[in-house]
């Protein structure tokens, strides 16, 4: 079984980092790249196995079966990977590798880099843990591993107050959100006496009590915070710009998705889908999704700081994903619901690629020019053509311009929302209008008349260019085969996610 190596490899890599660092700078960065490459290999294998067999992968810690001796219910911690988990593990490992390669040049003049690489591997490990676990408390532990690594990484550059302030704010409010999640889990454990997700699903379906609803309320509240939904998005617009750009790419591209919408979808579909009014849950998420996509994109329009603009744009894009998941829940079991859910999953992957690329571009600009203020960056395209091209591709993809990948996923979300409720589609299109306005402004800045600040700018080194080129390639490739990807990967992923019976039987199997 290859699954445990998804955790073992980054864990070993992270904790051996201080020792490897003694061998020198080169060894440290090589070790980080090697560890994350191996993790990507394992993640690819896990995804391929689940995708080709269409069977859930179940792994029990310390035993061969999750069920206790002589009893018919699971008592052990278990990991359970479906296609959604596998897909996210793949994208986490991929973006993680890109961010680490980029860091080898981007951050090489900073001090305390052994801590940096340790934390970035722990961040990756936390996210991988969340997407493979099938146990509520185990989920919480990985969520905290991920969150604590992000708090520290946001405040990594502690020579300015920006990072420290953002890190502290993020930590305080993030901890409160985490405690809501923990409270939700504690309520479920108190009521049903189990933490295994699939067994919880059975128990709640047998006896859906008020406590289970209250627990769900706390879980949704905490997870909406972690996904950066409006009105609990304020931390995001401070934390993501303050972090080093390679970390911003991981925070905006991955953390808000894995710790937010993935967990939300997992809990709603795999645990609660058949036991409470799923339509209500769907409409709650649709409501927050609509507010998020309007406010996030509108706020992006007025930013003058490039990284802050990208951070608000992330808030806006999370709105689309929440909208897709909400419609998927509200019209559970219909064709429209399937399309919406597939669109949300597709957009999760696409946005991870696009936003990682955009933050790497912002990092390259900041690294070479020394400012991220859009008013000073006029005419950058003449001095940094490759970086500007990368921005052009990222921006066109996020706006949803065909034939890039953003078009396909946004189209699925528009289509399903128009079929479900035309008002929602109108909101989604309005959000995209704001999004377009925001990115066109940056585009005009880049391609305008060169200012004094950018006069001496030049392209960054290879280690920063290569990850950007790889991401551009991935975006174009995914944009060229949108319907094949949708039919072969996204729709089966959506089917598997909402197939609660399959999720339960995979664990309870013989019982």
């Amino acid at each position, binding site marked *: 079984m290859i699954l445990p190596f998804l955790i073992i490899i980054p864990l070993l890599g992270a904790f051996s980092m201080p020792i490897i660092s003694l061998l020198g700078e080169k060894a440290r960065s090589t070790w980080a790249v090697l560890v994350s490459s191996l993790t990507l290999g394992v993640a690819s294998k896990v995804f391929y196995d689940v995708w080709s067999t269409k069977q859930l992968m179940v792994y029990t810690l310390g035993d061969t079966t999750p069920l206790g001796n002589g009893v018919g219910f699971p008592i052990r911690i278990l990991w359970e990977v479906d296609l959604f988990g596998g897909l996210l593990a793949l994208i986490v490992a991929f973006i993680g590798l890109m961010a680490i390669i980029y860091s080898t040049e981007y951050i090489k003049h900073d001090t305390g880099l052994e801590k940096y690489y340790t934390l970035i591997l722990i961040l990756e490990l936390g996210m991988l843990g969340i997407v493979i676990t099938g146990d509520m408390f185990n989920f919480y532990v990985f969520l905290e591993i991920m969150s604590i690594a992000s708090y520290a990484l946001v405040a990594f550059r502690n020579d300015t107050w920006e990072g420290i*302030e953002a890190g502290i*704010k993020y930590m*305080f*409010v993030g901890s*409160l*959100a985490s405690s*809501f999640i923990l409270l939700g889990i504690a309520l479920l454990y108190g009521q049903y006496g189990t933490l295994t997700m699939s067994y919880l699903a059975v128990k709640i379906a047998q006896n859906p009590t*008020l406590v289970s*609803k*209250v627990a*769900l*309320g*706390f879980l*949704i*509240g*905490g997870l*909406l*915070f972690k996904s950066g939904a409006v*009105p*609990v998005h*304020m*931390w995001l617009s*401070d934390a993501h710009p303050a972090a080093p750009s390679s970390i911003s790419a991981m925070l905006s591209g991955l953390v808000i998705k894995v710790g937010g919408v993935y967990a939300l979808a997992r809990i709603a579909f795999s645990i609660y889908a058949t036991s*409470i*009014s799923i339509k*209500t*849950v769907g*409409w*709650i998420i649709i409501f*927050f999704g609509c507010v998020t996509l309007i406010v996030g994109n*509108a*706020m992006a*329009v*007025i930013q003058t700081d490039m990284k802050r603009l990208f951070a608000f744009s992330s808030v806006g894009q999370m709105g689309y994903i929440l909208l897709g998941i909400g419609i998927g829940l509200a019209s559970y079991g219909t064709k429209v619901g399937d399309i919406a859910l597939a669109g949300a999953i597709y957009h999760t992957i696409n946005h991870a690629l696009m936003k990682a690329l955009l933050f790497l571009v912002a990092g390259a600009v900041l690294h070479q020019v020394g400012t991220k203020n859009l008013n000073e960056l006029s005419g950058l395209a003449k001095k940094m053509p490759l970086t500007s091209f990368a921005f052009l591709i990222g921006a066109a993809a996020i706006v949803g311009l065909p034939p890039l990948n953003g078009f396909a996923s946004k189209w699925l979300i528009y289509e399903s929302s128009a079929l479900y409720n035309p008002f929602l589609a109108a909101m989604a299109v309005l959000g995209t209008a704001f999004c377009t306005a925001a990115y066109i402004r940056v585009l005009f800045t880049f391609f305008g008349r060169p200012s004094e600040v950018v006069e001496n700018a030049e392209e960054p080194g290879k280690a920063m260019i290569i990850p950007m080129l790889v991401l551009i390639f991935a975006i174009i490739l995914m944009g060229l085969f949108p319907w094949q990807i949708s039919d072969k990967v996204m729709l089966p992923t959506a089917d598997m996610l909402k197939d609660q019976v399959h999720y339960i039987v995979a664990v309870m199997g013989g019982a």
Partner: protein
Amino acid sequence: MFGYWDTLYFLYVLAIGMIIAYLLFKWAEKSSMGTRKTGDGTKIFLSGEDEDNVIPQFEHLRGYYTGRHTMWGLIRGIHRMFLIFKREHTGLLTDYVAYLLITTAIILGALVIWG
């Protein structure tokens, strides 16, 4: 075929549309500097400058708010919305906590009532 429910739906959409249009109109009137209310026997001004200028083909609009000021009002209104957005949030931790608590309370309420 066009049925009973379609008619009702049409009326429902029309009513909501009228309410939205009225609110938008009031908002534009409030946001605009130049919109004037014209009474009996007064002319419609194309702009504030030339009082004798009637909008060609729009003479029948006498007695209503009109003119390009309404459009300016809308534009100014949208601009004002962005100005409000631009006033950056204070970033007080207590505010952040309050938003989180309110959000969770709304979700809890909705789930307990309709869940």
